């Protein structure tokens, strides 16, 4: 009896991430976005999703990666967090993966504490490591951790 977890996966700065598939409502192109002056850097802005206003978080900034290269269009993953619906900007959407629970391991100690909060663990899949993103923590931070950058590499 091997228990599996279904994860919706995507790429961010060539790293492979996943969130629980049942949390994902839809994946859309980024519609017109309204920027929010004075908000944390990681907040990309607000969009209108069929009458619902949702906050969009730029995951690259939230996780402290470099800015997305000019000319590349992000993809917006609309998902459910504990504080409501949220849009997540990622580089590229990938397939849905069935990850065996046995391949899960909590994030190693050399990952800094503030990152470990967002990425509590990884699935060691044959081809690559799949980073698990804690959706509920994504909205909580103030984006200031974007300063130290590139720790995940």
């Amino acid at each position, binding site marked *: 009896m091997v228990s599996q977890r279904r994860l919706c996966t995507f790429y961010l700065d060539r790293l492979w991430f996943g969130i629980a598939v049942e949390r994902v409502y839809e994946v859309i192109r980024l519609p*017109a*976005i*309204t*920027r*929010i*002056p*004075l*908000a*944390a*850097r990681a*907040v990309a*802005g*607000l*969009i*209108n999703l*069929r*009458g*619902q*206003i*949702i*906050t969009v978080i730029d995951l690259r900034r939230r996780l402290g990666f470099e800015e997305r290269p000019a000319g590349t269009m992000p993809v917006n993953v609309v998902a459910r967090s504990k*504080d*409501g619906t*949220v849009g997540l900007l990622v580089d590229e959407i990938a397939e849905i993966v069935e990850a065996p629970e046995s391949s899960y391991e909590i994030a190693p100690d050399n990952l800094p504490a503030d990152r470990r909060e967002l990425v509590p663990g990884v699935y060691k899949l044959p081809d690559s490591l799949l980073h698990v993103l804690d959706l509920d923590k994504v*909205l*909580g931070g*103030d*984006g*200031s951790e974007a*300063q*130290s950058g590139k720790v995940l590499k």
Partner: protein
Amino acid sequence: MSTATDGMEEIVKEFLAESTEGLDLLDRNLVELERDPKSQERLGEVFRAVHTIKGSSGMLGYPKLESLAHAGENLLSGLRDCKLALHPALTSGLLGMVDALRELLNAIERTGSEGDGDYTSVMRVLEELPRNSAAPADTVMGGSADAPADKLQAAPVASVSKIRVDVGLLDRMMDLASELVLARNQTLRFASSQTDGALLSAAQRLRRVTTDMQETVMKARLQPIGSVWNTFPRLARDLALSCGKQVIVEMEGSATELDRGLIEAIRDPLTHILRNAIDHGIETPEHRIQAGKTAAGHLHLRAFHLAGRVQVEVSDDGAGINHERVRQRALERGLITPEEAAGMGERRLVKLVFVPGFSTAEKVTNFSGRGVGLDVVKTNIERIGGVVDLQSVAGRGTTVKIKIPLTLAILPALIVNSGGQRFAIPQVSLVEVVRLEARFIEQLYRAPVYRLRDRLLPLCFLDRELHLEASVADGVYVAVLQAGAGQFGLVVDAVNDTEEVVVKPLGKELRAVTCFAGAAILGDGQVVLILDMAGLAQLAGIVADSRVQPLKPATEQGSSRDHAAQSWLVSRGTAGSRFALPLSAVARLEEIPATRIECSAGREVVQYRGEIMPLLRVSRLFHEPEQDRELLPVVVLRESGLSAGLVVDRIEDIVEQFVGVRSDPWCDLLEGSAVIQERVADVLNLKNLLAVARGAFTGGANDGSA
């Protein structure tokens, strides 16, 4: 198995909701009954409500609830059969039972069981009451002896046509309805360029149906104002009893409907006004009789629709406001000058009770008017786009009028452009719009002002405050805005139409940005941010209540105590927070080009007067958003030969004031907080800051060296 438990939970939930409603009704009916003890109809309703609770609690196995309700029912049946007569002690006993029942219901809701509360005293009162309440022989109530039992049982059937709906579901329906309007508009635009008759008639049909749909959903969110009022007769009774007064509450227009969001928002302000009216307005029975009034005071609540808004009035026939006392008190508190006081008419004087600072925590027992916390009422009403007005005739009574919009959800707003982005200004805070050429803006100590009809209007540039791209146009628009009791001008690039927008709250992660009240979707489907005037005025450093500030400067107050006034440098972080430093620690204020910042051992440093000075960014120390700027304002700190540069967002002011620092630091970099110029500022801990700058200090949650 689990479905059976779920079903049970549902039943209990339903029982709780119904019983709570029943108790609210009981409160009201019992008080009414006290006034009109002969009303068989009311007695019947009261009896039915208690009977239902008894029956349901017995069935669901809540023995305490059941026995309490049973005791109450016994008492009530005595009343119904004219064996007992109603008197205040009996009403109080029954109300006591209602409170006990409510407590039990709350316990069940929280913990699932009745808890171990002791209700024997309530029970004893209920059991002993009949002995002291025998009906006088001569009171015979017509037809009371045989209250028809079948009528009692028929009642619950009436509510079948209503169901309970989750509020979240209603909100979502509202969202979808407004989105449907957008889709309809797009379709209509497309259809108007087509010639196909069938398409055109279908589009017209869509138009009608959508409009009806939107209105219907709006209606579904409406609730009668009575749902707030129902608790008032009980509240008034208890309050009046405790101050030895008699009050009769009359209500008119309980069925007036308004949005459920507003119902919640006016509950507290209305309660406050009611308390004030009974506490300060209505006199004791002796005084009233002396003044030629009835012993019992009348409190009249009235609600009605007026010109697309709801007007709620609370009037009493009490003593009214003593204008002389208001004048004196305002003078004492330094709210007006003697010259102003002399020239003020009664209507203007009365308005002073709404001024913050008029009321205080100190007891005002001998104050015959009102005014305790009325500023809070005003603020709360204005927050929902309402207006409060107060009229008072000495000796005759006071009327408080509240005008509120029908719904919180829809707000008329002016759409403006600034820095290439659109923003919505709520129409309620907009006074006027002025177009002017940029050269007419003058500087008063670096603060931009404009002479509007010979009055100096403080200005705030929206693009600068929000760090947007500055515009280059010569002509600008100034939206004159009301924030609290003061006005200021908001400089924007362009003014568009007004639109009725549906207000959506911002997510939790954006609450910290205080200058936005919410967001809305415009007709073209784009999201626009709604500006919050109070937050904006605060961000811009325009004190909202400048006109009502005490005229005595803060330093005078300080010197009267034995502390000497100290000079403080107040600066500002990017998120609008204010930081204060003793001026004695500040060596210089500099502006340093960002290009001059260098890196040494992972820290930012700058070459300054032949030495290497470490830099600390307030934004990083306190996790505030960072702005890319060419010139950074730097406060050069120096103490015992050590110096460091503190990079702030803006240097605001130097204040000479006595400051009491409240020591409640939430991190080691702060000494505490203090109120400087009426607003809160964080007082920085100089020693620890310098230690962090030199890399010697590692304590505290915020390691700013990143």
